[in-house]
């Protein structure tokens, strides 16, 4: 209640008290075996989502085994001692539920959506596969075929997929953020079932798991249910990994890649800290608001000046995701209005960055970005699934789910000067990576790329 009230007061709007509704109530528990549980009550519909998060993804993978987190995610649907392959999906389906999973740079999560009174079925199945997963060689071989098809679909046959995979490999020299979530083709080809099993053994200890439940539930009852099903599982040591921080950037990195059937496209990114790595969180919030001023809506600068105005871009966007355990990228990208204009589009994007450094942003622009951010805080609550994701993402990044409540206050502290400062500090040439995507057909023999994927937290769904 407090937050919505504050929000509306800030907007200068008056609402009758009856229109205010309790802010979602969130509770956190830790079981004796170390498993953590975050429950948010949202009783607008008689349903619930359960997401079981493990803090492991592509950034944790040793070189040579990229993609193992995602392959493990696929293999988790292959049955247990008591339940043959496919039973999980069929059981949840019969209960009127949906299930799937997704893998990112720093997390793997398994979810079920179902009627709130059937939540126990989800817990039962999740606990069963943690305790009794069966890794079968024959299943593994067939599932690898599925993963290869997934890679072809997302990356090899998708020029934008190739571009984003290559961009990450170029932008990050020492950070594991350079590794594609789906894995390099060559690594996938040498992956063994033992690699997958080892990965499971290392990372899927119950104490390493975070269970997030959002919906029409009673937190204490959910805690009891979790205790019943996950409580008997024993904890095990959590792997300790060496840090692999990105080396200090000392010069721009550029590449032009040629991919069959591509259309010209430019991707640019400045290495920037995330909320987890930044010295002062306000810098991250300022970068967030800057990305909104540049591309948050049809009135934003890139739309107004590059798509309209100069008409040099058919599409243009900026993006910054502060929710990450590692440094991240402040991205600018676009498709030129005409094929010859790729270089000019890059120059125009750089000019927009320079304009912020030289002249800052206006109070009006900042206020519009803030108003939109405040409204988005309300809109995001329309999805139970997204609310659970937000909790999981913040936890996986080591930021903590409670941080979301501080975001709003922080927004109010960002000034136009602060935005100009962070632009000057982070949007510098030596932090910049530029990738041009061009069609292979224009430059001699077409060549099929063997690999490419990644992108930001592009969840790879099992479905």
């Amino acid at each position, binding site marked *: 209640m407090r937050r919505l009230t504050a929000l509306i007061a800030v907007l200068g709007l008056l609402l009758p008290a009856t229109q205010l509704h309790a802010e979602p109530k969130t509770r956190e528990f830790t079981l004796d075996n170390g498993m953590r549980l975050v429950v948010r009550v949202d009783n607008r519909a008689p349903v619930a989502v359960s997401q079981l998060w493990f803090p492991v993804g592509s950034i944790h993978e040793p070189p040579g085994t990229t993609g193992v987190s995602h392959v493990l995610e696929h293999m988790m649907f292959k049955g247990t001692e008591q339940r043959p392959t496919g039973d999980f999906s069929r059981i949840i*389906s019969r209960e009127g539920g949906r*299930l799937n999973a997704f893998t990112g740079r720093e997390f793997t999560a398994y979810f079920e*959506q179902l009627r709130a009174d059937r939540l126990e079925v989800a817990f039962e199945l999740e606990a069963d596969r943690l*305790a009794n997963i069966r890794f079968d060689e024959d299943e593994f071989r067939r599932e690898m*075929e599925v993963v290869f098809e997934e890679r072809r679909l997302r990356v090899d046959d998708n020029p934008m997929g190739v571009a984003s995979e290559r961009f990450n490999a170029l932008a990050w020299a020492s950070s594991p953020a350079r590794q594609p979530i789906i894995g390099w083709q060559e690594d996938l080809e040498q992956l063994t079932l033992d690699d997958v099993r080892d990965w499971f053994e290392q990372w899927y200890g119950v104490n390493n798991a975070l269970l997030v439940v959002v919906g029409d539930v009673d937190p204490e009852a959910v805690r009891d249910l979790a205790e019943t099903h996950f409580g008997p599982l024993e904890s095990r040591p959590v792997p300790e990994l060496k840090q692999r921080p990105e080396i200090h950037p000392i010069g721009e990195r550029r590449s032009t890649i040629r991919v069959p059937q591509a259309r010209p496209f430019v991707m640019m990114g400045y290495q920037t800290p995330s909320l987890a790595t930044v010295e002062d969180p306000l810098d991250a919030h300022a970068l967030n608001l800057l990305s909104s001023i540049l591309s948050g809506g*049809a009135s934003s600068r890139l739309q107004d000046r590059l798509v309209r105005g100069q008409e040099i871009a058919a599409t243009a966007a900026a993006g910054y995701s502060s929710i990450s355990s590692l440094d991240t990228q402040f991205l600018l990208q676009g498709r030129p209005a005409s094929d010859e204009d790729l270089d000019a589009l890059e120059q125009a994007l750089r000019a927009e960055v320079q304009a912020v450094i030289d002249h800052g942003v206006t109070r009006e622009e900042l206020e519009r970005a803030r108003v*939109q951010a405040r409204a988005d805080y309300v809109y995001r609550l*329309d999805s139970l699934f997204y609310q659970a994701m937000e909790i999981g993402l913040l936890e996986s990044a080591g930021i903590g789910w409670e941080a979301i409540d501080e975001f709003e206050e922080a927004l109010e502290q960002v000034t136009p000067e602060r935005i100009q400062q962070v632009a000057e500090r982070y949007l510098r040439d030596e932090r910049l990576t530029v990738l041009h995507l061009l069609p292979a057909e224009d430059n001699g023999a077409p060549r099929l790329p063997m690999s490419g994927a990644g992108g930001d937290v592009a969840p790879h769904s099992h479905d």
Partner: protein
Amino acid sequence: MRYPRLMTVLCSLGLLLMPVVGSGDVGGPQIQHWTTDRGLKVYFVRAEALPMVDLELTFDAGSARDGDSPGLAALTSRMLTQGAAGLDAAALARGFEDLGARYSTDSGRDTASVSLRSLNAPSTLSRAVEGLARLTGRPDFPEDALERERRRMLVSLRNQQRDPSSIAQRAFWEALYPDHPYGSPPGGTEESLQAITRDDLQGFHQRYYNIANATLTLVGDISRPEAEQIATHLASALRSGEPAEPVPPAPEPGEAREIRIEFPSSQTHVLVGHIGYPRGADEHFALYVGNHILGGSGLVSRLAHEFREERGLSYSVSSRFSPMRAAGPFRISTQVRSDRTGEALETLQAMIADFRAEGPSDSELEDAVRNITGSFPLSLDSNSKIAGLVSTVGFHGLPLDYLDTFPRQIEGVTRDEIVQALRQRVHPERFVTVVVGPDAEDED
């Protein structure tokens, strides 16, 4: 394993998984329906959970109305936001975004829509609605913006021409509907986009963006009087006019065809199917359940089981009927490794033939009904999902209790009805097969 055995937990499984999902107790949202004085049809659901409102004005103004100008409906829809009542695109945009409101326009084959999401505070909401009324009712179609948006549509068209999935989709619709408006590509062609004039846009807007051709969906935390006020205001901004003429009925499925399009990808994209049935057809529920079992239920469908789990052929495979104003397509789509295309096509044919001959087993039917009815509350757990469904009810003029009775309709479907409907509506010997991939030659 380092885990303790979970015998006690597992022993209780039988109890835990006892069927308890009954659907009768879950109703749909309460839809309030009225027509404003000026004739605008309104569908309103009061949803009080969040202080916000979703609003969609839907017009019978999709590409089925393109006539000889493919892309006309889409370009008209895009141009609404590019200038209205003397304001340019930037000023229109600031009008929404200064309020934290989100707005968009969209168009498909049947419909074109204008949407708004706003906080529900009266002063905010009324200004956002005013903005929406302005761009829907008084677009200027400025010449310079037209040239720009035309170019942007051409860029997007050229992207689609390099994308195997888009190539397959387009070939499939064109093959199914050679003499029907649904065969016209919604994104237009190079030639048609070049030829569209400002007069064309104005004519299209004048003909189709009128009160009689519109439905309004409102979902959110506002009172009935507030909803009525919004509806009346929007209606006052729209001109009166005539509903669009009925879309011509689609023909029955024609002869089998195979269309192979050479494309340098590593996967082959496959689309198989033919014309299905229109919205409102009697056999809708039987086919909905039947298709759910065949390829409409994600990982547990027959197709997914065979293609993915058994054969490792594909990452994704699905089938669906798309009931539209006129009969929309039935289509199966998948992507497979190119050297296994033959295996995939043969497997598909055999599976469809078998499903059509034998129908689902009793347990498949029971499982499907349990899933569809049991997951129904998940389809209504957000304002945006409710708005989408209510807008479908409104546009197609479905009974107001359509969502309420949906679970019961599904539960009433029998195995015999499914078999009968499949035999009537699925004809493998008349399938159009589109294959886009390497080493494919057109054998058509």
